């Protein structure tokens, strides 16, 4: 008879087998047996957060920057409900998380016991799958399956709910067999015929564009390399979604900027006018497509995605290739190299006019803004931050709002996994805890949260976590005293009725930083900006940087939601065109 282990021991044996190094969590009554067991497993370090939402986002930051699944440990009831936002965020942005939650003992389930909630019921729609373990004999199998579900196919969060009596109960442990690169529910079954069709379309296109998304990042760093090779080989312009930034170098000439609601003029016009659209690992989100009926009306559309349910969900495509991004592009490159050696040159000729058109759009300089020498413009602050950090390997997280879009527009990413932002769910308060997780995964790298003052206050308590573990994260707050994106929409659509978007009382962020035991820096003058940013970078410890910026600045360019790509509103440099009026107004 094999040795018997308690449920709590089995949890850790599984985590060890899965090579988990960090758990982000918060203890409570229903997980105490697991916490009690922690001391016996030195290879696993627990990071104590200040709120379970913070644990979830930290695990997301960890997962996205390292490519490994993030592990979260919370208690029953409020512990579980607090983590729901982070699970939903991870579900929307396809981040692999394994959340372990305590539950009241099995005999009390359903009795409204203290700190009881229907955790699997609540988290069912925001996880890929979840389990309530009612028998300790199932525990090791469930744990290993949970990691498999979270990390294969399109990644996502899973949750395992373990009642307290199961944590005490004993069973034997079944080791898991590491399978070869799993693609369990991945459906990596694309055919060579599909690749041939793709190449045929590529070799005929006159106005092509490649549109990439987070799927490239999720496919692993190798996929970004393959993508680079592919795009250089075919010579097409490439644009990226918010989530895909970094997969292709942001400062490369073939990169035409981010697309979508706050994307560049050239990227959105290219999407509208193209005759071939190759979507690689993106999902035609409504912030990308604008008005569906007028989305890229003249193009043949190709969609490469690992998730079959992403295909034809919003936009009908002409060619769907279901599979892992890296595998699909690799086999496309192979085919091109083997069959059509001449493709490279003939392609360049055929699309040279198209490139000329794109250059014309580029001259609009749609990301331009009117700088000031009196006030710090938020775009200027991001640009300076980029210039002063681009020579080192920097990881950027963001909160949600105007600052997030400015960061996406003006910070250029050259490598994948360096950009962590809440895209699908748009969770304010994501960036600070995510930065904690990123710094845990990359202790020697520079990690900056480009934040807004409203967002960052939602999870500010995690500064205490950063101080406890001496994580030198830098919180770079673009402080405009408004919920800026709300204010911008109110200005453009609601007759400047700034209903509840102004924060009348804000903390003194420098004093707040000091109260947490970290460094506070304040800047409100463009002249001192560079110097103070350098001071922030050079400081060995967590910093809150309070950068006071022009409160009235708006984020441009912008496509009002109900409009197609070629009807963007440009910034103040281009004032006369395209005011939102009449019907368009109702559509944003």
């Amino acid at each position, binding site marked *: 008879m094999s040795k018997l282990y308690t449920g709590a021991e089995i949890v850790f044996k599984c985590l060890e087998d899965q090579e988990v190094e960090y758990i982000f969590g918060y203890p409570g009554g229903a997980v105490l047996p697991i916490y009690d067991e922690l001391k016996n497993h030195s290879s696993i370090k627990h990071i104590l957060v200040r709120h379970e939402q913070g644990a979830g986002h930290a695990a997301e930051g960890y997962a996205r920057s390292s490519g490994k699944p993030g592990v979260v440990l919370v208690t029953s009831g409020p512990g579980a409900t607090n983590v729901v936002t982070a699970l939903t965020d991870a579900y929307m942005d396809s981040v692999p998380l394994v959340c372990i939650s305590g539950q009241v003992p099995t005999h009390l389930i359903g009795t409204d016991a203290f700190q009881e909630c229907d955790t699997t019921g609540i988290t*069912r729609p925001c996880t*890929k799958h979840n389990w*309530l373990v009612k028998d300790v004999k199932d525990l090791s199998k469930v744990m290993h399956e949970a990691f498999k579900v979270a990390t294969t196919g399109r990644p996502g969060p899973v949750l395992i709910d373990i009642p307290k009596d199961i944590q005490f109960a004993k069973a034997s442990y079944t080791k898991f067999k590491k399978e070869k690169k799993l693609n369990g*529910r991945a459906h990596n079954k694309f055919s060579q015929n599909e690749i041939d069709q793709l190449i045929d379309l590529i070799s005929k296109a006159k106005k092509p564009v490649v549109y990439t998304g987070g799927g490239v990042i999720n496919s692993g760093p190798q996929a970004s390399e393959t993508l680079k090779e592919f795009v250089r080989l075919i010579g097409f312009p490439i644009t990226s979604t918010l989530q895909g930034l970094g997969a292709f170098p942001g400062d490369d000439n073939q990169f035409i900027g981010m697309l979508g609601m706050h994307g560049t003029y050239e990227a959105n016009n290219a999407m509208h006018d193209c005759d071939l659209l190759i979507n690689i690992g993106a999902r035609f989100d409504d912030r990308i497509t604008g008005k569906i009926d007028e989305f890229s009306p003249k193009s043949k559309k190709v969609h490469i995605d690992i*998730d079959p*349910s992403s295909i034809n969900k919003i936009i009908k495509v002409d060619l769907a290739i279901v599979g892992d991004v890296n595998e699909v592009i690799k086999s496309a490159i192979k085919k091109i190299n083997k069959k059509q050696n001449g493709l490279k040159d003939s392609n360049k000729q055929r699309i040279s006019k198209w490139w000329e058109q794109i250059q014309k759009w580029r001259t609009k300089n749609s990301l331009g803004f009117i700088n000031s020498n009196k006030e710090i413009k938020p775009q200027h602050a991001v640009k300076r931050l980029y210039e002063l950090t681009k020579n080192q390997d920097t990881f950027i997280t963001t909160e949600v709002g105007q600052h997030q879009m400015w960061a996406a527009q003006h910070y250029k990413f050259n490598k994948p996994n360096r950009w962590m932002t809440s895209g699908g769910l748009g969770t304010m308060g994501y960036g600070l805890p995510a930065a904690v997780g990123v710094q845990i995964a990359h202790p020697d790298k520079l990690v900056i949260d480009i934040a807004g003052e409203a967002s960052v206050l939602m999870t500010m308590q995690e500064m205490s976590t950063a101080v406890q573990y001496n994580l030198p994260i830098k919180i770079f707050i673009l402080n405009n005293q408004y919920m800026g994106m709300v204010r911008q929409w109110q200005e453009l*659509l609601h007759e400047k009725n700034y209903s509840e978007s102004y924060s009348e009382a804000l903390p003194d962020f420098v004093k707040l930083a000091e109260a947490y035991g970290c460094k506070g820096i304040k800047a409100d003058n463009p002249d001192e900006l560079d110097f103070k940013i350098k001071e922030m970078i050079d400081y060995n410890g967590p910093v809150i940087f309070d950068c006071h910026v022009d409160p009235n600045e708006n984020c441009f360019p912008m496509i009002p939601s109900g409009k197609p790509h070629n009807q963007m509103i440009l910034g103040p440099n281009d004032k006369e065109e395209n005011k939102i009026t009449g019907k368009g107004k*109702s559509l*944003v």
Partner: protein
Amino acid sequence: MPSPKSAYSIPTKKGKLDTHIFVVWVDNESGVLARVVGLFSGRGYNIESLAVAEVDATKNISRITIVTTGTPQVIDQIKLQLKKLVPVHKVADFKREDKNVIFKEMALLKIVAQKKKIEKCIKECKKFNPVILDKTSKSVVIQITALRREIDKMSKKLKPFGLTSTSRTGAIAMTRGAQTFK
């Protein structure tokens, strides 16, 4: 009509709605029905009827039959989303007009009336394999099996004759001929 200052675009084209029958083979475990049904309610799909029971006790498999309506694009999505659920083994999708598939629903009809009317009801049910499950001097319980719309029609027809309650199973489906769905 969506609110005029919506943050999202307004739907424009409305596609033609088709009725489809989905047959879903799932692990018979706790919460599995909630996952399937939650998928429908969460994504705003319709359920016209739902029938579910375990069909293989050794392999622990249940068979869920769902009748739904949607545009071809939505029907496609339902199928793909169902396939993503972990306890789902396979998903079959049939158009209601499909001649190669048998759709049947069972109904129990209770009629409370005088003898004459009861006799009339039994006669009306003739076409649908009626089985008299219970009979008293004032009432009868008849079991019929038929298509959904036939049962709809019958319950309308029998109302004036004293039909007081109807219980229906929801449609179940099976392909004709020797082949089975893989």
